[in-house]
């Protein structure tokens, strides 16, 4: 599978979760695990460009696919991706644990809707739980990301 543009050998353990593979085999610990039953969205990554829960997928199932994690959005030393920048400007993160999942979901949302309505924003982030922000600042960040992506 290709992760953030780099080809990696297949995982050897058939029951290894994609989330564990990314975190503990490839060292991409920016993908977080909040519930391991597909509800909280912390582990959201892009599979061929679309947001998926990496805790609900076996690593071997990602063979032949392209995975993008939070680390793949902006390389070290480069400016933040517009969605990341918008989260910073709008104080859309507090503890930062759910944040990579939200950012990946919003990247997926904006790929589908370049200028989402308020309802599309709520639906676009309604697969991710945040316990700190109350979501208001995340909604503002999505609006800001739309501006930054222009």
């Amino acid at each position, binding site marked *: 599978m290709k992760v953030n543009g780099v080809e990696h050998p297949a995982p050897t353990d058939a029951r290894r979760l994609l989330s564990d593979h990314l975190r*503990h085999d490839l060292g*991409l*610990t920016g993908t977080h695990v909040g519930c391991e039953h597909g509800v909280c969205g912390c582990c959201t990554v892009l599979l061929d460009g679309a947001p998926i829960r990496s805790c609900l997928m076996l690593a071997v199932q990602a063979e032949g696919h392209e995975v993008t994690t939070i680390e793949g959005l902006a390389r070290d030393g480069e400016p933040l991706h517009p969605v990341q920048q918008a989260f910073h400007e709008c*104080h859309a993160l507090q503890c930062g644990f759910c*944040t990579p999942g939200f950012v990946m979901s919003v990247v997926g949302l904006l790929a589908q809707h370049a200028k989402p309505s308020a309802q599309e924003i709520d639906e676009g*982030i309604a697969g991710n739980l*945040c316990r700190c*922000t109350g979501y208001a600042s*995340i909604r503002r960040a999505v609006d800001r990301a739309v501006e930054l992506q222009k």
Partner: protein
Amino acid sequence: MTTRWFGAPVQRVEDDRLLRGHGRFTDDIGEGALECCFVRSPHAHARITSIDVAAARELPGVVAVYTAADLPFGDVDLPLLIPHPNLTHGRTQRCLASEVVRYAGEAVAFVVADSRYVAEDAADLVQVEYEPLPVVITPEVAAAAEHLVHEDVPGNVAAEMIQETGDVDDALAQAPRRKKLHFRYERGASSPMEARAVWARWNEAERKLTVFDSTQSPTSIRGGLAVLFGLPESHVEVIAPDVGGGFGPKIMLFYPDELLVPFAAMQLGRPVKWTEDRQESFTAVNQERGQVHEVEVGFDGEGKLLALSDDFIHDGGAYTPYGLILPIITAAQIPGPYRIPNYRVRFRDMYTNATPTSPYRGAGRPHACFVMERTLDAIASELSLDRVEVRRRNLIQPDAFPYNLGVAWQDGNTVVYDSGDYPELLDRAVKMLGPSPEGDHVGMGLAIYVEGTGVGPYEGAHVQVLVSGKVVAATGIPSQGQAHATVWAQIVADELGVDVADVEISSGDTRRFPWGVGTFASRGAVTAGNAMHVAAGMVADKAKRIAADHLEVDPADLELVDGQVRVKGSPDRGIPLAAVAVLSNPVRYAFGGGTEAATQFTSRPRPGPPLPGPALPGPPLPVGEQPGLEATGYFSPPGSTWASGCHAAYVRVDPQTFRLEILKYVVVHDCGRVINPLVLQGQIEGGVAQGIGGAFYERLAYDADGQLRNASFMEFLVPYATEIPPIEIDHIETPSPLNPLGVKGAGEAGVIPVGAVIGSAIAEALGVPITEMPLSPLRLFELSKG
């Protein structure tokens, strides 16, 4: 002091690494650690008749399996954190149960293996035989005392406390109106997105233990581990790295894993890591909010309170690791912003066969607020008075501070409100809320609360100016997302006249600052914030002394501005703070960074106090002065600071589906002087969201057997964005007279009144009595059917 940074909406300095996926949470720390899994009791109350770990130990990849019999501290009761004379029957659990389990989820065995996958396989092979015992669930069942949670605790009562101001019986007897009311609040869970985790490494050569722990109190964990393992505190390092939310329950001393992981690392000579999964988080992490209140209130025909008596039972859970702090807080916070001439409160802290309780954001206050506000709604209803007007008639007035409530506070003192303006809160909130929206099944709710914040004992801070001119500062309390690194930097930057970007903060790392208490009780800004202010002020004074010597001026004529120490009114006469840092440390060997200016051959003779003997200009390091441009300062508050606020809302309830729609939600908030409005807004928005969850979605559903029936995010419904409306926020500032910065805490405020607001609004929308929390569409359906 200048106030350039204090009060400004400074964007957070901690964001970049978190946004790039470079945060460092405990489970992110690898280094080949062994991984662990617990065997936990499936029974809420049972006697253990046998434990067989042989098969688990034989599984390839398993390194160790521990039961209580394998632990040198296996028969030691874990600490009781906050002892109190009224806690006559305090009980704590042991690290691993070996005789009786008293809640489903209590730890029985601990497996260490090459990987988490193998550890979980091995945990399945541990055979534990149980003999079930009668289960005591709900505080009412506990009070009936048909069965006991602890054989040696009569009546299941851990603690009882009665307090009274005035003469309640007499005042009730004479009151023109009396009303008896019953209220019930059930348990919820804080559910931080990061569950708990501990990583430990033992260095045998240096005899040093290093622990990364998602705790809210690394300094206390360090102290406890040092005592347990017989090590000097300097040989134990505890670090709370990035922590993914806490909200209270991440502070304990100890959860079993906090001992077992370091113990296993010392035994096995390898790093060991345990990461909680979400399911065990639901049963193994402390919970809160279960209480049942019986109120009698006396009032006059104008709706003025004359007397209030509340007799409540608190669902303490199976053990009392956190003492009776929760019911004490509730008892103290029921009167809230209202003047009650005669007040009596009695509580009993009940043992139940459920997960132990300890503070969860709000900590005893959401229930207290619910009781008081629903009582006022009942008075308004009985007298056909406006709910706003009834509140206005009973509020403590702005000229009444300091206001002594006359009941005990959690710090051992009596509750004394330091400052506030409650009528202003109410007036602004009502104005912001505006007229009611059109339509059927719409209701209005409002509630006012006070919150004792910033409790002691103390926090400290170390601040140092480096020879580069950059500033490093450290405090013992960790952050779980509250932007400590930003707001401490604002406070330090103001004192030292530097840019926020030049201040780097360390928090929650005992290697950097070993003293302190923890992050809880909305206390960080008051305690650590003021400690930062004190320490940075000491550094500023020292910088002025050194610069005064160098510039041959009076220190009182100097100021710290733009990274310079300069003469007031003569901006050209000054030296860079970086140069002062160099001069503060007279050296023999120049090592770069400008230090050649401070070697013994180049530094100026110092006019310190004269030494005995021949007249000399004084030693390079003046008598009484320490090297380095640094200082350690502490702040110990004389009493709690009392934040306050008023929330109001309009809701609509669908009469068919009983879906809740929050049409408008407004907050007027007072936490004294505001350090960073951006951060404060986030705290309040997040708090209200958590309060909405606790009011309508997040009920821990225990059955009569003590089984938690909704231990997953599939069934315990933490709200998504689709459930949380926009929140409109306004502030007033009544500075606290109890600390130099005039600040009060803000961390818990958003949560406290939400249940009372939503309950009141739903009661009006549906015309049904609301005396319980949390609610749900199903519960509203039941209530509407009578």
